[in-house]
């Protein structure tokens, strides 16, 4: 999306405004899990491929489980929040617990080519669009 990075000074704000606009999109509305499930997702398109990004601060790689079947992606895991009980508590805003979320994508993905990365509390799933799902150009003879 060329528009996003036309002006480096405004880049982030423009990006944020685009993200905010899409909050009302019903792109995943047909899936088994709706808005408001943990972890919240952002879905991006890069070329033909879908990238799902989720913020999962405090979740270790080992505590994440990702499964894919056909068009449905499931992300489950446990977020552990440890509290140092010895001292006094001033604030406790972080929440821990278990999560399990499944989303059904509107396109077919190549299940064997899916990659997942988790760095600095950000989970990124790279879902390449299946070859058979890509539109084909028909030559007129």
């Amino acid at each position, binding site marked *: *999306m060329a528009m*996003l*990075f036309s002006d480096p*000074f*405004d*880049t*982030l*704000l423009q*990006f*944020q405004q*685009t*993200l*905010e606009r*899409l*909050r009302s*999109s019903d*792109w995943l509305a047909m899936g088994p899990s709706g*808005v*408001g*499930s*943990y*972890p*919240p*997702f*952002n*879905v*991006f*398109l*890069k070329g033909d491929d879908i*990238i799902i990004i989720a*913020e*999962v*601060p*405090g*979740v*270790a790689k080992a505590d994440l489980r990702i499964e894919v079947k056909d068009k449905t992606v499931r992300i489950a895991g*446990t*977020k*552990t*929040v440890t*509290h*140092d009980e010895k*001292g*006094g*508590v*001033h*604030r*406790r*805003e*972080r*929440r*821990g*617990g*278990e*999560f*399990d979320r499944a989303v059904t994508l509107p396109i077919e993905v190549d299940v064997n080519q899916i990659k997942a990365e*988790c760095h*600095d*509390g*950000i989970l990124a799933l790279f879902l390449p669009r299946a070859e058979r799902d890509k539109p084909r150009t028909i030559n007129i003879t």
Partner: protein
Amino acid sequence: MAESQALQVQEKKELVSKGEKTVPARHYVPSTDIFETDDALRVVMEVPGVDRKDIDVKVEEDILTVEARIDPAKYEGMEPLYTEYNVGHFARSFALSHKIDQQQIAATLADGILSLTLKKVQQAQPRRIEIK
């Protein structure tokens, strides 16, 4: 204990600060836990997507300020299709009720969690005066 409960989405809070930011972008308030022990204050913040080098922690006049910046270049070439949360820099500050030893602030970052240990300044030890 909370560990067995299903995790709920906590909507990100946008920062409403006294001093407006000069950067034209939205800042968010990181979820924070604060604990106090006899000799230190422990501050644990959620700053997902922030690199180690993009975090500033400072204590000035008993105000702890943390700024953590994300790198929007990581999203280059990606067209958003559907979104449930917004991204932005994180910023938060706290007024401290204890003197903090500036030289002994320790910070670690792991899985998007910033942990700060702020050592309190050693108070003058109570001293018993011997009468001769």
